[in-house]
């Protein structure tokens, strides 16, 4: 039964890690717009819009 000396703290630490992750996501506002994330998956803003060849194909660097 000595194994529980390792397993119990391990289980608790995993639990704490989950709790910490949840609180972090809450504090960074990830629960404020639950619909948006689903829609954003569908948007193509990671694709480059067609541009003239002279402009390097990079993301906007607007200040």
């Amino acid at each position, binding site marked *: 039964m000595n194994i529980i000396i390792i397993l119990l703290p391990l289980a608790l630490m995993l639990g704490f890690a989950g709790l910490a992750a949840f609180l972090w996501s*809450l504090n960074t506002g990830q629960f404020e*717009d639950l619909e948006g994330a689903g*829609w954003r998956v569908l948007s193509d803003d990671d694709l480059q819009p067609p541009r003239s060849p002279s402009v390097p194909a990079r993301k906007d660097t607007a200040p």
Partner: protein
Amino acid sequence: MSMANAIDCSAFIWHVGPGRARMDIAIDGIRCAGCATAIERGLSSEPGISIARVNFALKRVTVEWDEAKLAGAQILQRLKDIGYQGYPFASGAADGNEARASAYLLRCLGVAAFGAMNIMLLSVSVWSGNVSDITTETRDLFHWLSALIALPVAAYSGRPFFDSALAALRNRSVNMDVPITLGIVLALGMSVVQTMQHAEHAYFDSAVMLIFFLLIGRLLDQMMRKRARDMAANVAALRAETATLIREDGSTAVLPVRAVNPGDRVLVLPGEKISVDGRIISGRSHIDQSLVTGEIAHLPAAAGAKVYGGTINIDGALTIEVTASHEGTLLDEVEALLSQATAARSKYVLLADRAARLYAPFVHATALATFTGWMLAGESWAHALVIAITVLIITCPCALGLAIPAVQITAAGALFRSGVLLRNGDAIERLAQADTIVFDKTGTLTLPQAEWLNPADASAEICEAAGRLAMSSRHPLAQALAHALNSRNPYDNVEEVPGSGVRVMHDGVEMTLGSAEFCAANDQISKAQLLYPGASFVAFRKGADIAVFALGQKLRADAVAVVEALKARGLRIEILSGDCDEAVAPIARELSVSDYLSSVTPASKIARLEILRQQGRKTLMVGDGLNDAPALAAAHVSMSPVSAAHLSQTAADALFLGENLGPVVEAIDIARQGHRLMVQNLWFAVLYNFVAVPLAIAGLATPLIAAIAMSSSSMVVTLNALRARNRSAT
């Protein structure tokens, strides 16, 4: 929009750093990911804007920018260029409180989930050990570890219940949270004592799981309220009412109405909507109060007269001193009636509260009876107490706590998809009970703006000329005509004759548009008056040709179908209108509604509702005018179109969007289904107690049985509630 009359948004901007400004903007028409991308890209490509982030759930965009480079109004202009109308949005203190309350409940829920999972890990080991070869030492270790997790977790996550129970006790009353708190505290206390005595069972997992499930119910309830509030706030911002403020130095600025304070002076030009309540200081005009009182006739107004927000200034510029902006004083009569009506409404007891009232005495009586029963049967008092406490634990209302909020939030989602915004979560159950619908006429059954009634009477050529000329007039009727005729390209050099109409020379022909005298069309207008009683008329003369345009109220496109659909659902329909009989009768006939009253004052609207109430009827009032506000508050449940006067929206339980009445039928259907599911859920909770309580009384409810019973009943109730998403389910 030129900078001269651009909106001054400074009241909505807050500063987040040196030179950095931030503003929330409510946006009309975000429907899909494409819209959001277009808005975010369009705004962030503007030099000076550093952050533009759309919140889908709230239909708002938060913009952060460099104040040195941009003014707030330019951002709204930029949005308009992209194709979206944006309205600066003031997040009030109440919003912040709601958001904090939600975040607090979520944090509690997270902690409770962590506790429940880890304790369950230990409990499952103990349960499987109990049927095989666990030693007493190992079991005690696991129980102590559970206590180590459960006590702080319960102390933190249980706070919402403890606080509410304490508050209730301090007021010498009992609410649902009192038995919950008692159950949690006794379960934890008993488990600690049991653990000290090396007992086989401890109820740490039950106590924490109980908190977890109850918090879900509490959170759903809170989300429902927050959502209703967010939607109402958006509607308020989207009304986009502005006022032209006259500053001390005589200069003017266009401000959103929320930024105008009592005592300020505002200028209202002819044809503009008056957006504030106030007193006329100078100027003379006629005022169209139809949207407020339902009366179509225009009233003369001069210095000293009171004016009300939502009315339209017809023909003279007015300077108004604001007595109250978006909320506050009103027609005194309406205000007094409104507060009476609101007090009467609060007598209604919600389904959840009725269940809670039955629940607490039942639980406590059962626990007490169990204790005395086992004592009489010769058990030790300690053992009898343990069994009595398990009764308290197992009857704790997990399913009851979820039964109603879960249905409310799914039904509110379904309502939102059909264009109904709930202002009150509990409106669903009252809506489901409605058996009589009372409609207001002006602006509710009819469209809020004047429509063109006689399209057959004029040739296309005349219509085109009249429409182009009408565009140059600021008179509301002329503007309604131009809108109805889809006019483009106004004429140049149009002369406006105040109080009469507009005149232009085009291709050598003189054209006039305006009153009957101005166009010498008295005969034609008196003929038209016979055909269209209650309508307003605009005359048009081009050389020798004369045309008369009748403008008046038109039924909403689906009004007839909606009234039929409502009758088919067994609802009685009535019309109560402040307008005259000649205007109401034809509409009632068209809708085949035989019960209607015309020229009704706000007080007699309430009196009528009271008669209906005494007949045992539950009334749904649908209205929009200021004169409907007391009736909306007095009715069993009420709805307003989104174009309604501000006060009416505040008094109504739900708002419906768009030009159609269809959402009223949908709302009734969804509410009835939701109510059915709520009642099913409550019966399920009763059934659960019928099975679980005898087990507990017999002393057979082990922690394992408690865990299975709690989680399975909560699951069943939640899954049943999800059926409210699906309209075809019954």
